[in-house]
């Protein structure tokens, strides 16, 4: 494994909705990632990408997003649950890349106002991640009843999420290291 380059793990804030509580979750996970040694991260807000919607796939690729995904060793997707699934714009943006994702780890953070904590959106994501060549980890973070987890200013109210997020990130980083080793050293037969 190349020991010089730190792992790159961007956090994608996957909604553009006004008043989105997912922004608090994304900023919290991003702050926890920044505490990890040997890891660099950035917060990517899909509201700032402004991808065209008159086409799809690689035809609407955003160079900044593409470069961030190419550099990434793993990604964290923070997604609210809208009608039991992910926001359409998030899927639109994820679909704009492919080669950038292959054999890289992905972790999902679900956010919802209900007690389910985005469990259904996380399940919906699994076949999408697989088709994109991403490798989903088996830890998630579920921000259920999210209005009780963060106050209006984004301050964490429930300290249990520090440990839960720590477990999630440890697994994601392990998978990111393993997959980087594979991309660097193990050739397809």
């Amino acid at each position, binding site marked *: 494994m190349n020991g010089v380059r730190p792992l790159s793990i961007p956090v994608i804030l996957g909604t553009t909705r006004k008043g989105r509580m997912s922004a608090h979750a994304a900023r919290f996970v991003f702050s926890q990632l920044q505490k990890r040694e040997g890891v660099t991260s950035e917060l990517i807000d899909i509201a700032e990408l402004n991808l065209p919607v008159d086409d799809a796939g690689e035809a609407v690729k955003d160079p900044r997003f593409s470069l961030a995904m190419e550099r990434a060793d793993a990604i964290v997707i923070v997604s609210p649950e809208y009608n039991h699934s992910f926001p359409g714009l998030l899927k639109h943006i994820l679909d704009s890349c492919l080669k*950038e994702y*292959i054999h890289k780890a992905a972790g999902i953070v679900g956010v919802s106002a209900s007690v389910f904590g985005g469990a259904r959106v996380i399940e919906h994501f699994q076949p999408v991640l697989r088709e994109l*060549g991403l490798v989903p980890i088996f830890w998630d973070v579920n921000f259920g009843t999210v209005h009780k987890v963060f106050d209006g200013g984004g301050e964490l109210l429930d300290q249990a999420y520090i440990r839960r997020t720590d477990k999630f990130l440890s697994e994601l980083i392990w998978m990111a290291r393993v997959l980087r080793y594979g991309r*660097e050293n193990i*050739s*397809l037969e």
Partner: protein
Amino acid sequence: MRCPSCGTLMNRHAEKLIKDSHVPEGEVLASIHYCPKCGKVEAELERDDE
């Protein structure tokens, strides 16, 4: 394949069928290469070699 950014020999670690409206089959095989030095990713389309 050499990395177009740093010249390092890239590792071919995956193949993937991708949609391509320019071929009759509607999809083309891509080899995915990764640069162990700088992390650049390249996709080499099978039709490029034909």
